[in-house]
């Protein structure tokens, strides 16, 4: 990690290095009080329990107060955008569900939508309903993960075990349909790989009230806890205009009171035919972000229930030409991924490979806002902030 001692007299110049390469001590006189204090340079990460992944935050600490914070990313950069230029659209679907490994299905659907828009394909009704249904299940799975990890970061050990218990039940559902646990690769251009297995809808229907009840348990366990409230309310307040300026989206944006959700404003799949509730907060602090996250699970459960009610029968796929080729041009498709707005800017030269596929990932923009929230905060508050600006490192670095 980061605690290699600096050679004596190191002024801190030179290139910034890898983890633990340089420790810079800044000595300056505080005007007020006349005490000479030294700022401590601390690397949180790239491997640190609070960053769940390889995010690195370089901090200058004055005591436990953060004077300067700088997220350093790229430790998981896998060049998906370059790889996508060397894959056909079928293969890209298997590629793009990997950057945000917690919301694979929601990512897949974006690329499929982009190609379908360009090809002007009509996707069968049933396929669209199933996409909506699986998207929401996937969203719940994603949110449960962060419910657990946020509790864990604040020192509550138990919610993470409960969250994984619930996740596992949804995981079984997704597995029965797609065969995958993490990277479902179930979406296809023009529809889906397969129809749902027998019993899937019934099992979904049974699971909805169970999860709903347990989300209520989380509310009681965490939101109702005085220590939790003391740790999160008023911490990391994000004003709406700053959030928009940075392109922050998802729960972090909704917590500021802006109910911008692609499922409502530009519905894709079957979101136009269901009632999508977008929970919002007021102050944009960590508490609101977490409350919005929990409420989003409830809202997603509502959508799941509506999908189950409206599920039509019919084919789940269209006959595609042997080679899927998007016509020349460019299109931007945005979807509401669990972590925020996912966008796919597809530039095609009419071949079976994209000329350029830009993946706009929510975590990237959300994390770029971090210095704004962190500077001036206490170190323990950093954890409450990092945990509530929900991010996946793969989603930042792609």
């Amino acid at each position, binding site marked *: 990690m980061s605690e290699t*001692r*600096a050679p004596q007299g190191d002024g801190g110049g030179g290139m*910034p290095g890898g983890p633990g390469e340089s420790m810079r*001590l800044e000595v300056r006189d*505080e*005007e*007020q*009080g006349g005490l000479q*204090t*030294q700022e*401590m340079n601390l690397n949180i990460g790239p491997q640190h329990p609070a960053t769940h992944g390889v995010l690195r935050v*370089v901090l200058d600490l*004055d*005591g436990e*107060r953060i*004077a*300067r914070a*700088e997220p350093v990313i790229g430790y998981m950069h896998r060049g998906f955008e370059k790889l996508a230029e060397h894959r056909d659209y079928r293969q890209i679907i298997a590629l793009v569900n990997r950057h945000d490994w917690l919301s694979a299905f929601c990512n897949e659907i974006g690329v499929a939508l982009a190609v379908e828009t360009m090809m002007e394909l009509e996707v069968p009704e049933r396929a669209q309903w199933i996409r909506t249904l699986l998207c929401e299940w996937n969203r719940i799975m994603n949110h449960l993960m962060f419910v657990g990890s946020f509790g864990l970061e604040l020192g509550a050990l138990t919610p993470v075990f409960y969250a994984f218990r619930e996740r596992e039940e949804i995981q079984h559902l997704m597995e029965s349909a797609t065969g995958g646990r993490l990277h479902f690769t179930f979406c296809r251009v023009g529809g889906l790989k397969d129809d749902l297995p027998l019993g899937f809808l019934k099992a979904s229907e049974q699971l909805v009230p169970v999860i709903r009840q347990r989300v209520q348990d989380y509310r009681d366990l965490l939101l109702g806890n005085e220590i939790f409230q003391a740790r999160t309310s008023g911490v990391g307040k994000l*004003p709406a*205009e*700053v959030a928009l*300026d*940075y392109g922050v989206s998802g729960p972090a944006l909704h917590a500021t009171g802006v109910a911008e959700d692609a499922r409502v404003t530009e519905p894709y799949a079957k979101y136009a035919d269901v009632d999508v509730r977008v929970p919002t907060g007021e102050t944009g602090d960590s508490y609101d972000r977490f409350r919005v996250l929990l409420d989003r699970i409830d809202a997603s459960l509502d959508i799941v229930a509506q999908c189950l009610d409206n599920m039509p029968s019919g084919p789940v796929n269209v006959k595609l030409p042997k080679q899927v080729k998007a016509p020349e041009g460019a299109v931007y498709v945005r979807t509401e991924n669990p972590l925020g707005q996912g966008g796919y800017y597809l530039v095609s030269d009419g071949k079976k490979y994209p000329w350029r596929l830009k993946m706009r990932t929510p975590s990237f923009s959300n994390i770029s806002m971090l*210095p*704004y929230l962190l*500077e*001036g905060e206490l170190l323990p508050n950093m954890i409450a902030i990092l945990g509530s600006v929900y991010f996946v490192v793969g989603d930042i670095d792609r």
Partner: protein
Amino acid sequence: MAAPELFMLSALVVGGAASLLVVTARNVVHAALFLVVALVSVAASFLWLGAEFLAWAQVLVYVGAVIVLILFGLMLTRAPIGPMAQHNENRKLAAIVAVALFALLTGLNVASFGGETIELRTTGAGQLGEVLYLQWAFPFVVLGFLLTVSLIGALVLARREEGEGPLPDPGPHEEIAAAREPAPTDATPIPGGPTPGREIGSR
């Protein structure tokens, strides 16, 4: 030599050696840790002399609180961890003064009590309390009052120096941040917030 005398002797030797190391150690944290040993040795001598309550009070107050505060202060103000050489130009002078003082006190003690035999008996907490609260009640209360006043005075002084809040004012950071990077010309101004652009190459 009987066991109790051996005990006393070892306490004195250990305490004396530790005291010497306190003043000769080149590392302040080491010095503080040797001070722990010295103070515990003193507590042991108290124990041998029958002042049981005093001995544990010594441990509770000096080891448990004073030394912890010293270490706390050292670590807080000398954040860069590691050995620090202590420079002091007056080592010789200090040694002379210390030896002279020791000689003076020893001489006075010998002159006052030399040859007297003291009967060692354990002073229980009960006896101590009786003496303190019956015989010396007034001075005890006055002393307590004095300590309270000084405590409050220290609090007042400390607060004035730090600003009003219990935590240092975050002002300087913002000023420095503002000086380091010019604010964007027309981004929505947020007081105290960092600006989008910053010199990253300098970290």
